[in-house]
């Protein structure tokens, strides 16, 4: 009677069993254990940063029921990924796949192993994207974490034709933005302290990542750090319930790969740093026409002796592009800086006094 349904059901159960051979239990926090995925059979395990609350005394529960001790290779709070290494354990590496051919509506499974046995939930891909601005509060957290001033993005009047000297209206707008930025920074400071008490890392979970897979899989307790598995049993990413409240997000395999490789060679992620506070501002019609973009980033603060200061960026400059890539929003700039660009000398295209010019800035490292 139910041929297709029975077949689908059996295939899903079989897939859980097969992919589950690469899903391990990660015991690195006081509460419930979480999950991890074997990255390579030589001992690398990928899991969520937020479930690894201690740097030592980490235990991995293997699919065959045995346990092995693990060491921390490194962690990246931005993508909520941590990499562990186990020695002398029989590991089965899964089939890691990219997300280029993943489409909204595809069936996916989330796997976890908070106990001895593998567990699974089912869902569909809800969205694939690179902009996490749906949740205003989350965006604010993101900005705070990177040390950028944070504020509601206001309606800034367009820059007057002719540019500087600034007419009173634009100047007032700039001042208001600076005040808001300062207030936001103060708020952020308080928030950071509260966070520090709540979580052992003292940092925020809400990360900055340019790519993600959003799904409607239920994140059962202990599923963080487990894999997002497609219909072919391939691993498309690492699930985390901590990247955004109430939404299941997975960090796609290509991002995981980049993080794993960087953590392996450096032990930590190197975050690019310019030393500016900025907010999006609408460009004048003429400039918008010239650069084929609606907004740029208006500098509302430049820290002394920062890479931006040394490169000659000034308060009131509007950044159009960095390293040949158009930046319309803070998210785009942050994404550029998170891509392991420390030490690179990049051209920054700015509008100053109505004229565009290019400056060379050496990207520093956020400490």
């Amino acid at each position, binding site marked *: *009677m*139910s*041929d*297709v*349904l*029975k077949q*689908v*059901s*059996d295939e*899903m*159960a*079989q*897939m*859980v*069993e097969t992919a*589950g051979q690469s899903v391990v239990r990660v015991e690195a926090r006081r509460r*419930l254990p979480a999950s991890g995925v074997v990255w390579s059979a030589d001992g690398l395990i990928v899991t969520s940063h937020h479930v690894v609350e201690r740097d030592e005394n980490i235990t991995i529960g293997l699919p065959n029921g045995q346990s092995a001790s693990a060491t921390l290779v490194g962690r990246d709070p931005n993508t909520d990924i941590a990499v562990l290494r186990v020695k002398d354990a029989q590991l089965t590496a899964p089939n890691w796949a990219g997300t280029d051919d993943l489409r909204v509506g595809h069936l996916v*499974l989330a796997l976890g192993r*908070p*106990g*001895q*046995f*593998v*567990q*699974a*939930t*089912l869902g569909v891909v809800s969205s694939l994207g690179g902009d996490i601005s749906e949740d205003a509060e989350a965006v604010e957290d993101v900005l705070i974490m990177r040390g950028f001033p944070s504020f509601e993005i206001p309606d800034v009047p367009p820059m007057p034709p002719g540019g500087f000297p600034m007419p009173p209206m634009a100047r007032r707008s700039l001042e208001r933005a600076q005040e808001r930025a300062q207030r936001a920074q103060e708020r952020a400071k308080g928030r950071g302290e509260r966070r520090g008490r709540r979580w052992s890392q003292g940092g925020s979970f809400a990360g900055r990542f340019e790519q993600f897979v959003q799904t409607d*899989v*239920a994140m*059962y*307790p*202990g599923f963080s750090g487990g894999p997002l598995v497609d219909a072919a049993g391939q691993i498309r990413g690492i699930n985390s319930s901590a990247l955004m409240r109430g939404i299941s997000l997975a960090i796609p395999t290509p991002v995981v790969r980049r993080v794993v490789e960087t953590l392996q060679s450096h032990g930590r992620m190197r975050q690019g740093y310019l030393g500016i506070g900025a907010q999006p501002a609408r460009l004048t019609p003429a400039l918008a026409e010239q650069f084929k973009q609606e907004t740029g980033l208006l500098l509302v603060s430049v820290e002394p002796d920062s890479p931006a200061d040394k490169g000659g960026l000034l308060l009131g400059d509007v950044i159009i592009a960095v390293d040949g890539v158009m930046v319309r929003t803070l998210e785009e700039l942050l994404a550029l800086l998170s891509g392991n660009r420390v030490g690179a000398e990049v051209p920054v295209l700015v509008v100053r006094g109505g004229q565009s010019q290019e400056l060379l800035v050496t990207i520093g490292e956020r400490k």
Partner: protein
Amino acid sequence: MANLLQQLNAEMSGVIESGWRSLVRVGNGEGAGAGTIWHKDGLIITNAHVAAKRVYRGWGRRTSGASQELKVTLADGRDFMAKVLAFDEENDLAALAIEANDLPTIEVGNSWVVRPGQWVLALGHPWGVHGAATSGIVIGKGTSLPEMPPGRDWIALSLHLRPGHSGGPLLDADGKLIGINTMITGPDVGFAIPVDTVKSFLRQALGARSGEVV
């Protein structure tokens, strides 16, 4: 020519329709839950918390033993007063008898073959909506699941159980009974008592052969 998804839909409806025949409503005078016909001669399984008598003592509501005023409503609309044959609050199971014969039953399966990832369907009366279905997959099973007290066997489900689903059947893709819907720990996570636990409950309570399906 129907595509695969349409075929899936048709087959799911088939499982639901066969499951409906064995789904009953169990009214305890105050609220109502669901129940599952186990035997054609009137044996019905439900949760102890559905069949329990409610008493008010001081603050709040307590339960105290099995209710003597249980009303079972069949899918065809017939009402019966039920006698409680066995009542086990620890396992949250109750066996009821009604004076009816040749009731439609569904095939009883085995829960030890249940695997995480397999498709399941739960029937019941969520918020009083009659015969509503929700489907999902098995998250896992066993005695040590997160958020659950250890020691008892459960099937964890990724579907939307709600008040009123309690006591209703959990079916697999073949339409076989594999569990009794019992509780939730969140909007997306439900728990069912495995059908093997129901069998041993019946064997213990009603004698050696009563757990077998005839």
